[in-house]
């Protein structure tokens, strides 16, 4: 991290970044190209389709003949709820593991990690029954066929990993500020809320992104626990385009993938600021 830019190194950096960007974007461009084709197959044996083969028909079909917008809204609801609750829950837990000393701390960390390694062979059945009971107990608010219930499932799955990441981040934060706050008479909770939390921006942004994206790629859980098409998430709705016993509509799926990626990119843009915050903070201090 040189303070003065070295033009040669800068050019090299751009060269590398561009090459990686090219490789990264290649399949995505193909998804985009597929979404503009008229047929329904995924792969073209021609690298570049002719202009006459392109059309926005699949986007039109998606927006007018499928509940795409409903699915999208559901996904965003599940993602936002999952991210918010996960942030609160894992920020507290991660901080506790990083800064407090208590009985069962080390074992607790280990147990969390272990829990996450268990392949969920039959978890589906158990989670289904669990949501059934939860639904009965909460009047349907948290149970089957509830977006909130689905959010819970995703939060549960991500807790160990997110907690670990936050703990690791807080571990690396200098303790001086907290120590002086304590000397000034702040309670531990005040220290956490007023001193540490504001410094946790970058890692919280990372955790928010993780939790936001998880519901996008999973079609198995929601397809089993939801009982109305208007409760489906995007992944489930899209899955039905391509799993129709060989009658697959890949191009429609491609169009949905492209539009479906927009909220993720928007969120990423919104959180960019937090991801680069530390740098500016350091610079200001210097």
């Amino acid at each position, binding site marked *: 991290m040189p303070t003065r830019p070295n033009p040669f190194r800068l050019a090299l950096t751009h060269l590398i970044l561009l090459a990686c960007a090219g490789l990264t974007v290649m399949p995505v461009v193909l998804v985009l190209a597929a979404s503009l084709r008229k047929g329904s197959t995924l792969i073209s044996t*021609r690298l570049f389709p002719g202009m006459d083969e392109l059309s926005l028909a699949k986007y039109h079909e998606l927006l007018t003949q499928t509940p795409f917008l409903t699915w999208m809204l559901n996904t965003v609801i599940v993602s936002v709820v999952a991210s918010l609750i996960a942030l609160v829950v894992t920020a507290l837990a991660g901080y506790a593991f990083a800064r407090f000393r208590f009985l069962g701390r080390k074992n607790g960390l280990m147990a969390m990690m272990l829990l996450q390694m268990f392949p969920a062979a039959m978890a589906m059945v158990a989670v289904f029954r669990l949501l059934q009971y939860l639904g009965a107990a909460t009047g349907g608010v948290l*149970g089957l066929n509830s977006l909130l219930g689905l959010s819970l499932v995703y939060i549960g799955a991500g807790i160990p990993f997110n907690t670990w990441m936050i703990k690791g981040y807080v571990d690396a934060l200098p303790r001086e500020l907290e120590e002086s706050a304590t000397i000034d008479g702040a309670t531990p909770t005040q220290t956490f809320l007023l001193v540490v939390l504001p410094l946790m921006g970058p890692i919280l942004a990372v955790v928010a992104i993780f939790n936001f994206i998880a519901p996008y790629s999973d*079609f198995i859980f929601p*397809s089993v626990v939801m009982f109305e098409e208007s*409760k489906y998430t995007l992944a489930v709705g899209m*899955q039905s385009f391509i799993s*129709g*016993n060989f*009658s697959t509509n890949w191009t429609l799926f491609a169009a949905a993938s492209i539009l479906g990626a927009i909220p993720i990119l928007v969120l990423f843009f919104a959180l960019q600021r937090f991801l680069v915050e530390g740098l500016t903070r350091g610079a200001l201090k210097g």
Partner: protein
Amino acid sequence: MRRLLLLIALLFATCFGCGPTTGQADAVRLWTGLDAEYPVIERVVADFQQRTGIQVQMLKVPFEQLRNKFLIAAPADLGPDLVIGPQDWVGVLATAGQLEPIPQEALPGEDFVPVSVQAVTFQGQVYSVPLFMECNALFRNTRLMPERPRSIPELVARATALQQADPTLKGFYFDLQEPYFAWPFFSAEGAWLLRDKDGRTDPFDIGIDTPGSVRAAEFLRSLRQESHLIPPGASENISRTLFQEGRAAVIINGPWMLKDAKAAGVPYAVDPFPPTASGGQPRPLVGVQGIMLNRRATRRAEALKLMEHLASVESTVAISQASGRPPVRRGALARIQSDPDIATFAMIAEQGTPMPSHPAVNAIWVPLKSALELITTGKSPADRELRATDERIRQKIQLMLE
């Protein structure tokens, strides 16, 4: 910040309103994994509701998740009254004890094509009312190959000549490692997947290790190794694309491709399989989509009425036209003759072999696919590989049925 909080409050408000709806508690519930047919099924069901006053609640589930969802939800009393699916689900769902045999009064009648009723019968009981069927046929680009080949060797010879004349073309292309597409050649040599004895399927009567199946496997190998028609990496998806781009003369595919084939603007014909070198007639596997009745159905009487309505000539003709899959009733078949492609598929399906409904068939696909790959890539001789595969499949079925 305030705007953010407002947004969050709004999201939560939307969420708390989303408990399970109880409004349609007395509706007949129907689940299906069909996609292309779904809008038409919706229309047919709406018509039924209007005519009978019986409420119906439909749910479209991704096809590949539907069987699993039913298996989880049904024992928890959350399953639908009716579920539409292919006959290879019949054996699985019935063995798990979640299906009720179709009652006498709703049984498919005389006008159902025999192969369709045979397909949905499991251990002597009918578990599904057939709606329509599907199977493979040859899609031929009539510009590249104007004459219909009279035999498989002739097809191969012309395909090879075509490819030699123009290497950018494909003469005869399909996923020959996929048992579903390869099966017609096995059936032509007298091979079988599972056979019935006294009206019941014997899960250990497997016919993939016979001199005939070795011949069929050798033929597939020759397509790859000698005629160089189908290199490794061939897939159903690529075959469809090549055909639609006008670059493949003949491919093997099913009625679900008809819509795309028409839209692609390539002149084509649907041909039945011609006989093989040994004179055997290739018979593709026939899948039959039908309606099954949940053993714990709560609105049984109304569900049976809906079943009858969906399986009617009127309804199946409408659904069939949407998807290209031919209907199974003679009366309905008579009315789709105006579409020569669907009619051809119907004719081929009637002479095809039904895909076994017994759950044991699930133990066959993966090993057979590996075997086809090893044989056609020349890694393993056909006779030895098929014998080993047969043995492996038997062990798996033993385990499955315990």
